[in-house]
């Protein structure tokens, strides 16, 4: 724990300084022109600045710490820590499933939390997953979506990253209402202990995303667009419940009819004849 405390203390100090300088830089860099506007992202100019700010903070602070944590901590310990935080999030996912009227998911997730908390030693071991109980991620932003709120424009929040108006409101509401996965931690009176846990949560989270981060670097033409579009698709899918409980027979799951699939027909219709011909001729390119 000494290590973690050290990391944490360092974190706060560096964070403060960085935030001050970089926030200013971000605001000043504000208004570049947007060559390829997207309907879901009317605030792209601001968003890109904030994205750059977040990337800079990440590069200077979170990422190096996460790398150090990965190098210094044995994998079983990291997995345990990761599972404990995931287990806390699962509880709130369960609550949100109920709020959305997805009772089956809610029950499954609640069972998951109970199983992992007891048999999994406080969530340290994800015994539920090992026994085929799948995680159904959920949060209040999704609940608002299910209740009929539109996502609104995409927005990159300082430090928080990808969001939209609805999901941002969801995070805010839940934090104020004391119903986030960190509420239990925030209620700890021992301030150093509390801060240590929060720091460990942040480091754990960042560590778990290191590989994905590298992958995006290798495959994205434009990191900003890649992450934005992935976020928009993902949130939409969660609200529609498309990927709810894969493998669990679930009555309300929409049938996979064509209207649930991305519509590429724009190209297909106009291009049907032309498209078919090269399509048959693709065999060589697919080797």
């Amino acid at each position, binding site marked *: 724990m000494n290590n973690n405390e050290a990391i944490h203390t360092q974190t706060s100090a560096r964070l403060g300084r960085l935030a001050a300088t970089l926030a200013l830089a971000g605001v000043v860099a504000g208004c570049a022109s947007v060559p390829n506007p997207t309907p879901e992202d009317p605030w792209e100019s601001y968003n890109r600045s904030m994205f750059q700010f977040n990337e800079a903070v990440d590069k200077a602070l979170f990422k190096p710490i996460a790398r150090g944590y990965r190098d210094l901590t044995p994998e079983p310990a990291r997995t345990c820590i990761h599972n404990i935080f995931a287990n806390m999030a699962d509880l709130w996912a369960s609550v949100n499933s109920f709020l959305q009227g997805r009772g089956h998911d809610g029950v499954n997730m609640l069972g998951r939390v109970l199983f992992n908390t007891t048999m999994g030693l406080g969530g340290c071991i994800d015994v539920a997953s090992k026994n085929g109980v799948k*995680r159904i991620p959920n949060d209040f932003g999704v609940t608002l979506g299910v209740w009929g709120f539109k996502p609104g424009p995409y927005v990159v929040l300082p430090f928080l990253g990808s969001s939209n108006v609805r999901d941002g409101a969801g*995070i805010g509401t839940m934090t104020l209402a004391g119903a986030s996965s960190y509420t239990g931690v925030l209620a700890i009176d021992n301030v150093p202990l509390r801060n240590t846990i929060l720091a460990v949560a*942040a480091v754990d989270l960042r560590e*778990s995303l290191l590989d994905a981060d590298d992958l995006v670097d290798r495959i994205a033409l434009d990191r900003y667009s890649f992450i*934005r579009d992935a976020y928009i698709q*993902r949130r939409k*899918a969660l609200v529609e419940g498309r990927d709810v409980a894969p493998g669990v027979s679930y009555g309300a799951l929409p049938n996979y009819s064509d209207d649930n699939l991305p519509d590429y027909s724009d190209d297909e219709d106009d291009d049907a004849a032309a498209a078919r011909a090269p399509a048959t001729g693709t065999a060589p390119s697919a080797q």
Partner: protein
Amino acid sequence: MSFLASRFRFTQLLQLGFCFLLSVGSSLSAHAAKQVNPQAAPNEFVETVGNNALEVLRNEPAAQKGDLNRINQLVNEYVLPYVNLEKTTRLAAGRYWRQASPEQQKALVEAFKGTLIRTYSGALSKVDEISSLEILPFRGDANADDVVVRSSLSQRNGPAVGVDYRLEKTPEGWKIYDLNVEGIWLIQNYRNQFAQQINQNGIDGLIDALNRQNQ
């Protein structure tokens, strides 16, 4: 801290998912590579392709050590024959496809191929003997020529992840052309990036950008 989570969760899921294409059906894996029959039912087809790729990968020490070049070769050999790269690229390019000359189209498919291989390979280093995949019951119209096969992959240290494959029936049989990882469609995720590059630097600019990444 949820702020970081919201920022990165999606890319993480994406990565997890892409490795699942290659671990399809691992729990049932046979010892010898099974003959892939593109004329079979779509879910059987996906299962066999995934099985074979995973089996090969497990028996390849270089791949298990995370040698990306070797994994690239394996992906090229065992997965790409069943992927309709031309269609993936054409749909990602959208309306700009028609503006491209046949030569540009060919170059674009070839350039994007590198991205797709890296996408699969990057995550392949994570596949291990414990990864197992389940093909979910087929929900669509079995007679359709554009179908979705759904699957779910369980892995060593976390919960299962859902991956869907979109397939088209061609005269040679089924071909995969799009992939969904936890709600994120691959083609959909490249459409804006393609448009952006083309608007700024033309089709050749896009080809160059893709090729730069291939190096």
